[in-house]
């Protein structure tokens, strides 16, 4: 019930956002200065034709920015799914929503290619549609006699995830060999330099979804104590659920369209931040967006750096799974699947 106490005033949330935003800026700058090759910032700024400038501004910075955007999409989407399903273990990846987005994205990629407009509009919208479809299925099959049961919903998501992986592999098998190669990253997420138009499009999807979610933060607080109780508090539960459903799907679809399914960001970040800022969605959403950015930039920097150790670059999805899966298991142990307290 503490989450309903109006501890987070608008001013407090703004202060939190500014503080965390500063942190994000520092992390972005730091991550841009770390990499496989040593670069001099001074030379990069002075001589735009230098290797230092190319590495810093063409190879590293776009990737850091994309990682930040994807993290800022996936972590709040985890928060939203957790509120929607009333389950602390809900996450776009675990629920098969990323998988649904990836399957639809793969199909679109094979049909329309990955050209400029396609990567900004067709792929994200297909992935969005795939995410919507997957969430809808989770919501349909997660019900027992008309009531959403978090455990059942999560299991439906797990099954859906397996189905989507099978569909992606199936599309790859029947597709032309080169399209199959292109579709590789839809199986395991990877941060690659994106075209500016695609980056801009993702930024718009993220900002719009976050603003809408933030406006529903109080209703989300009410939802976490249960639909009936929220109804009693005067919240339009059906409408709020619909809004969360759309925003979370858009966040997931937009992220997956550019980087494939990157797992566990929506679990690790929100739960860590709940310990720090509490469960009030007014603060949690903002904190998750910025914390997600920091987390994924950190993970992608590790990915880049691991080239020095193993001679190849793994995909970032491997790293987030290595961090996230144990985290998920600990959470499972502590809270249990059924006791859905946030």
């Amino acid at each position, binding site marked *: 019930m503490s989450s309903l106490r109006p501890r987070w005033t608008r001013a407090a949330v703004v202060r939190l956002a500014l503080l965390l935003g500063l942190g994000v800026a520092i992390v972005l700058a730091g991550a841009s200065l770390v990499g*496989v090759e040593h670069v001099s910032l001074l030379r990069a700024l002075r001589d735009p034709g230098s290797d230092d400038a*190319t590495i810093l501004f*063409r*190879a590293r910075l776009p990737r850091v920015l994309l990682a930040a955007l994807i993290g800022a999409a996936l972590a709040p989407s985890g928060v939203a799914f957790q509120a929607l399903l009333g389950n602390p273990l809900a996450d776009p990846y675990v629920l098969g929503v990323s998988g649904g987005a990836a399957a639809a994205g793969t199909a679109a990629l094979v049909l329309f290619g990955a050209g400029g407009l396609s990567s900004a509009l067709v792929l994200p919208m297909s992935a969005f549609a795939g995410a919507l479809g997957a969430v809808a299925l989770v919501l349909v099959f997660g019900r027992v006699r008309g009531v959403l049961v978090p455990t059942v919903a999560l299991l439906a998501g797990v099954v859906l995830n397996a189905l989507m992986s099978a569909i992606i592999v199936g599309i790859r098998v029947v597709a032309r060999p080169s399209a199959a190669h292109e579709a590789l990253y839809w199986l395991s997420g990877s941060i690659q330099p994106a075209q500016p138009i695609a980056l801009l499009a993702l930024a718009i999807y993220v900002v719009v979804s976050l603003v809408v979610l933030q406006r529903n933060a109080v209703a989300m607080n009410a939802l976490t104590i249960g639909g009936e109780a929220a109804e009693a508090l005067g919240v339009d539960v059906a409408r709020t659920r619909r809004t969360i459903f759309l925003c979370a799907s858009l966040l997931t679809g937009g992220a997956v369209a550019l980087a494939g399914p990157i797992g566990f960001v929506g679990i690790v970040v929100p739960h860590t931040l709940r310990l720090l800022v509490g469960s009030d969605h007014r603060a949690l959403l903002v904190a998750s967006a910025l914390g997600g950015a920091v987390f994924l930039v950190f993970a992608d920097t590790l990915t*880049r750096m691991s*080239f020095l150790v193993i001679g*190849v*670059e793994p995909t970032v999805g491997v790293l987030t799974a290595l961090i996230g899966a144990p985290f998920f298991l600990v959470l499972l142990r502590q809270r249990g699947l059924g006791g859905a307290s946030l």
Partner: protein
Amino acid sequence: MKWLAAIALLSACHRAPKLGTRTVTDGLGRSITVAHVQRVISLAPSSTEIIYALGAGDRVVGVDRYSDWPEAARKVTQVGTDMEPSLERMVTLHPDLVLVATTANAQRAVDNMAAVGLSVYVSRTDSLEQIFTDIEGIGRALERTDAATALVAALRARVAKVPVRAPPIPCAIVVWPAPLVVAGRGNHVDDLLRVAGCRNVVDDGSQPFPTYSTERLVKKAPEVVFVGTHATGAPSLDPLLALDSIPAVKNHRVHTIDGDLLFRPGPRVVEGIEALARLLP
């Protein structure tokens, strides 16, 4: 009567070398006993191209789905993908020999073929010289030894005409621009680059085709970058062209090149070498 049948079965298993059989050694050094090979299945585009180049295309009864050259190969019965061919389809085609390649086929698939009694010839082609050896080996297996000798001699003559560059030009071959996959060491593509007059700048690491660090490629400063195209056309070069301090990018020396000429270790690699050499400054 049962024991009689058992003896008959045993003796059938213990095959004495029949008249007219020959033993050929494949790329893995295994000895394969074949009779007159009339029916061949090829599970790698490179093997298919070698068979046709040896004038034995009429003996091909099955190919993998990526074997699309020469044109005639497209009309042959397909037996599935190189990694997961259909054993049943292969058995019903009654091949005398199945050609597979270490670059394209999984060891497990090879084991499965041997288990159902198919004779399997495995090609191993990590260098240009091994490609020539492979052509000769397949030639012996198909009793096209003279054709193979002539083909290899012709290919060698063409290679000899490729101008030697001293010092060699620093180059890179990009298999895929994003995620960046390049040709590293220990594969035939690296060797083709060398023969064409290049020095492969990707000389670190042990993987033949590593997912490479973009930053490292910038630092390696290749003078020329070749990007392999695939059946459906060239991938987008934008991620590469953004790296404009790389000499190859600065001097407009990022060239697309037909990937089938480079990545298929068959007779057309010499065409690939010539194409690479022509594009060098």
